[in-house]
C-alpha cells in the first residue's frame, strides 16, 4: 500500500516535470505551428547551467534562478537568430533545422563541459525525507518538485486565462493570421512565448538534474515523451498537456514498478523478465498509438478546424 502511494507520488512528480517541458512545446507548436526538436536541448542546457551556477554560487536556489534566467536568454537568442526565419515553413524543414540544432548543442556541451556527465548535489535541507502520513515518508526534494511544478502550472493557468498576454496566446493558438490582422505584434508575442517555453524547459531540466546525472543527450529521450504528451493532449492545448502529462507520468511509473510482478503471475519467469522491461517502456507509446487511432486530433484539441 505504502509502495503504491510512493509510486503514485513518483508518477505525479514525473508527470508534472513532463508537463513543464510539454507546456512550452505545445505553446510553440500550437501558436507558431513550429515543430521544435531542440526543445530537449534547452532542457539539457537548463541542467548544465544549474550544475555550473550552483557550483559557482554555492547556493542551490541562487544557482537555479541564475540557470533559469540563462535558459530564458538562450531561448530568446535562439528564436531571434535562427528559428523565427522558419515560421511558416514546412514542418519537415523545421524538423531538419532543429535536428541540426540538437547536433550543435550536444557537441557544444561536450566542448564546454566535457564528455563526462556532471552531478548536481542537493543541499542538506532537501535530502531529508518528509513524513506525509504516519509511516509514509517521501523524499523532500521530490516533494518540492511537485510543489514547484504545481505552482508553475497554476501561474501558467492564471497567465494564460486571466491576462491580456494570455488572451493573445489563446487567440494565437486558434487563429494566427487573424490576430496578426488585428494589429497585434505577432513577432514580439512569438519571441515571448518561445522564451517562456525555453524557461519552462530549463526549469524542468534543472529540477530533474539532481535526480539523474546531467549528461549529453539527456534531452532527447524526454523530448520524445513530451511530444507524446502534446499529441495525446491535443496540440496547442495547455489543459490537454497538463492532464496528459500526469496521465503519462503515472502510467509510466506504475508500469515500471508493477508490471514485472503482474507479468510474472501470468507468464513464466524467463518470458516475464524479457517482456516486462519492453512492455513498460512501450506502454506510453502504445497509449499514444491507441489515442491517435481513436481520436486522431488528441484528447483535448485546442482548435476546431
Amino acid at each position: 500500500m505504502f509502495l503504491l502511494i510512493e509510486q503514485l507520488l513518483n508518477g505525479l512528480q514525473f508527470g508534472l516535470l513532463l508537463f513543464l517541458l510539454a507546456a512550452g512545446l505545445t505553446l510553440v507548436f500550437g501558436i507558431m505551428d513550429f515543430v521544435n526538436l531542440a526543445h530537449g536541448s534547452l532542457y539539457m542546457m537548463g541542467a548544465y547551467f544549474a550544475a555550473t551556477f550552483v557550483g559557482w554560487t554555492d547556493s542551490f536556489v541562487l544557482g537555479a534562478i541564475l540557470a533559469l534566467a540563462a535558459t530564458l536568454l538562450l531561448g530568446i537568442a535562439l528564436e531571434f537568430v535562427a528559428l523565427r526565419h522558419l515560421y511558416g515553413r514546412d514542418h519537415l524543414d523545421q524538423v531538419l533545422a532543429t535536428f541540426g540544432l540538437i547536433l550543435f548543442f550536444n557537441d557544444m556541451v561536450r566542448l564546454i563541459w566535457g564528455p563526462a556527465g556532471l552531478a548536481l548535489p542537493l543541499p542538506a535541507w532537501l535530502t531529508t525525507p518528509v513524513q506525509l502520513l504516519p509511516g509514509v515518508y517521501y523524499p523532500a526534494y521530490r516533494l518540492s518538485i511537485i510543489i514547484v511544478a504545481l505552482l508553475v502550472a497554476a501561474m501558467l493557468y492564471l497567465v494564460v486565462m486571466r491576462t491580456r498576454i494570455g488572451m493573445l496566446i489563446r487567440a494565437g493558438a486558434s487563429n494566427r493570421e487573424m490576430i496578426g490582422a488585428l494589429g497585434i505584434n505577432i513577432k514580439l508575442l512569438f519571441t515571448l512565448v518561445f522564451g517562456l517555453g525555453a524557461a519552462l524547459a530549463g526549469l524542468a531540466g534543472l529540477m530533474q538534474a539532481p535526480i539523474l546525472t546531467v549528461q549529453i543527450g539527456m534531452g532527447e529521450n524526454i523530448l520524445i515523451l513530451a511530444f507524446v504528451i502534446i499529441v495525446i493532449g491535443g496540440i496547442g492545448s495547455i489543459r490537454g498537456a497538463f492532464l496528459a502529462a500526469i496521465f503519462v507520468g503515472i502510467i509510466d511509473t506504475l508500469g515500471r514498478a508493477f508490471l514485472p510482478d503482474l507479468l510474472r503471475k501470468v507468464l513464466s519467469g524467463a518470458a516475464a523478465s524479457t517482456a516486462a522491461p519492453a512492455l513498460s517502456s512501450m506502454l506510453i507509446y502504445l497509449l499514444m498509438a491507441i489515442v491517435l487511432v481513436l481520436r486522431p486530433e488528441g484528447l483535448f484539441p485546442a482548435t476546431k478546424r
Partner: protein
Amino acid sequence: MKSKLNASNAVVAVVCAALVLLPIYSAATGNIFILTLLTRIIIFALAASSLNLIMGYGGMMSFGHAAYLGIGGYAVGILAAEDIGSGFIQWPVALAVSALFALVIGSLSLRTRGVYFIMITLAFAQMAYYVASALSRYGGDDGLTIYKRSTFDGLINLSDRTQFYYLCLGCLFGGIYLIWRIVNSRFGLVVQGVRSNEQRMQAIGFPAYRYRLTCFVIAGTICGLAGALLANNTDFVSPAVMYWTRSGDLMVMVILGGMGSLFGPLIGAIVYLVLEELLSQFTEYWALIMGPLLLLIVLFARGGIMGLLGRVRRG
C-alpha cells in the same frame, strides 16, 4: 522522364560512374578505407531512397523509418545466432518481417495526418527500439554480434570486400530502378495524386488509403533490405540502429539531397556521410559545424542539392 543534359543529370551520371569504378581505384591505390566508407554510404542511400518514395512522392512524412533498418538487421542477426546462415532464408525473412511491420504500423498510422503522422510513426519505431533492447537472448541493449555473414551457396562471398560492395551497389541501383518504375506507373501516379489532393482522388474513385498503404509497405520492405545489408556490413546489429536520431539522419539525407528527386537521396547520403567523415577527421566536434550547416541548408537551399543544381540549369 526524358533524359536531358543538365547540371543535375550530369552530376548524377558522374557520381554513378564513380561508384561503379571505385573498387578499381581502391584496388589500384590500396585504399581500402574509401571502399568501406562507400559501402556504408550506399546502404544508407538505399534506405534513404526508400524513405524518399513515401516522403517525396507519397507525402507521408515517416519519422520512424530507421525501424526497418533494425528489423532487417535483427532478422539476419537472430537467424545467424540460431545457426541459420543461408542468405536465401535470412534475406527473404528480413524482407517479409519488414513488410509485415510496415503493414501493421502503416494501417494504423495512415489514419492520421500531418504532424500526428510524424509522431505516430516515431512512436512505433520507438516501440521497436524498446523491444530490441529487451531481447536479452540476443544481446539486449548491447546489441548482437554476427559471427558469420550470410552465405549464398558459393554464389557470392559477402566477406569479400569488392563482391559485397558490388552487391550493395546492385541493390541500390535495383532499388532506385524499382522506385523509378513505381513512380512512373499508374500506381505511382495515383499515390502522387493523393499527395497533392486526397479528396479529389477519393472523389474520382481511387481508394486513397489502400494506395498509400501499399506504397508504405513497399518502402518499408526496401528499407528492410538495406537493414539486412547493414547488418552484414557491420557484422553487428544493435537497438541503436532504430533510435529516433537514426530516423532523423535518414530524413536529413533525403531533404539534403532533394526530396522527390530520384537520385536526391543518394547525393544526400554521400554529402551527409562524407561531410561527417571529413569533419570528424578535422575536429572531434564535427556536429558543431554540421548542425548550423543543416540550419543554413534549410534556410537558404530549399529543394536540397538537386534543387540547387536544377536552379543552375534554369538560371
